[in-house]
C-alpha cells in the first residue's frame, strides 16, 4: 500500500431532540396549517416560533397568538453553495421574514421569485405543503413567495433587524 498522508476522523453526535411545551404547540400548529406564537405578558412582544419565555423580560410567555403566513423580508442572503440538506439548487435566497403581528423574524426560503430580486421590505406569504402532507415540522411551510403589495417601509421593521 502507498504512503498514508491523511486519515478520516469523523465526529458524530446522535441527539434525541425534545421539542418542549412551547415549540411543541408551534409544531402541532404546523400540522394543522396554522402558525402559533406566544405573547410576553410584560412587553407584549410576540414570539414565533415560541420558546416558552421572553428572553428580554425573563417571564413565561403563556398567551397563545395565531399569526397569518403574510410577512415582510427584513434581511436575506443569496446561497450559491449546494447543500445536502436543501433540495433546491443554488443560487437561491434565504430570508428573515417578519410575520405580520410577530416580533421575531422567521428564517425561510424564498421561491417563485428570481433569487436576485429579493429585497428588504418585500412582502411575502407562506406557501404550505398540500394538506395531506402537513406534519409537525417547519417543513409544512415549503417556502415564502412574493405577494402583490407595496414594500413595507423601513421604519416598520427596522427594530427587527
Amino acid at each position, binding site marked *: *500500500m502507498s*504512503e*498514508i*498522508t*491523511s*486519515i*478520516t*476522523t*469523523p*465526529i*458524530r*453526535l*446522535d*441527539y*434525541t*431532540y*425534545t*421539542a418542549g*411545551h412551547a*415549540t*411543541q*404547540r408551534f*409544531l*402541532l400548529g404546523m400540522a394543522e396549517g396554522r402558525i402559533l406564537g406566544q405573547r410576553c405578558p410584560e412587553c407584549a412582544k410576540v414570539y414565533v416560533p415560541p420558546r416558552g419565555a421572553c428572553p428580554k423580560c425573563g417571564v413565561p410567555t403563556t398567551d397563545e397568538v395565531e399569526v397569518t403566513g403574510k410577512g415582510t423580508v427584513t434581511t436575506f442572503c443569496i446561497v450559491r453553495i449546494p447543500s445536502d440538506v436543501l433540495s433546491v439548487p443554488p443560487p437561491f435566497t434565504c430570508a428573515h421574514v417578519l410575520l405580520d403581528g410577530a416580533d421575531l423574524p422567521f428564517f425561510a426560503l424564498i421561491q417563485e421569485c428570481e433569487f436576485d430580486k429579493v429585497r428588504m421590505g418585500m412582502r411575502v406569504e407562506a406557501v404550505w405543503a398540500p394538506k395531506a402532507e402537513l406534519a*409537525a415540522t417547519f417543513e409544512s411551510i415549503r417556502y415564502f413567495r412574493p405577494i402583490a403589495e407595496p414594500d413595507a417601509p423601513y421604519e416598520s421593521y427596522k427594530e427587527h433587524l
Partner: protein
Amino acid sequence: MAETTSTRLTAAHVLEYPYRRSVGPVLGAFFTGLTERRLVGVRARDGRVLVPPVEYDPESGEAIGEMVEVGPGGVVTTWAWVEKPRPKHPLDRPFAWALVRLDGAGSAMLHAVDAGSAAGMRTGMRVRPRWKAEPEGNIHDIVCFEPEARGTDPETP
C-alpha cells in the same frame, strides 16, 4: 385544541463532522506502518521511543523524526474494564481500555484488550495486536490487543 399531555414530540438530531486531516511525515509513517502490520515510533532526544510518534521532542520542542520499529508485543501498564460496550466501541463484547507499552517503546499507547473478562486482565500482562484482515492505514487496523499465550508473562513462572 387543548394540549394533550400524552404528546411529547421528539426527533432524531444528528450533528456530524466528517473531517479528513492530513497526518504529516511522522504520523504518516506510523499509519503507513500499520498497513504493513508494523508498529513504528519516534526516538526522542533522551533516547526513549515514543509510540504513537510525535513530531516534536516533548522536553526540548525540537523537531524529531528518527523512526524506530517496536512491538508487536507489549505490556499492559494500566487498564479499565468496560462491562457494557457502547455502539462505537471497537469490540461488541466486554473489553478493557488499556495503555500498552510496546516492546522497545518508552511510552504507552491506548487501545482495547480483548481478555474475555476482567479476571483475565492484569497490569503487567503481555499482549499482542490482533490485526484487521485488510489494513487501511488507520488505528482500527489493530482490531484490539489480546493476551499472549499463557506463561509468556515475565512475572508468571
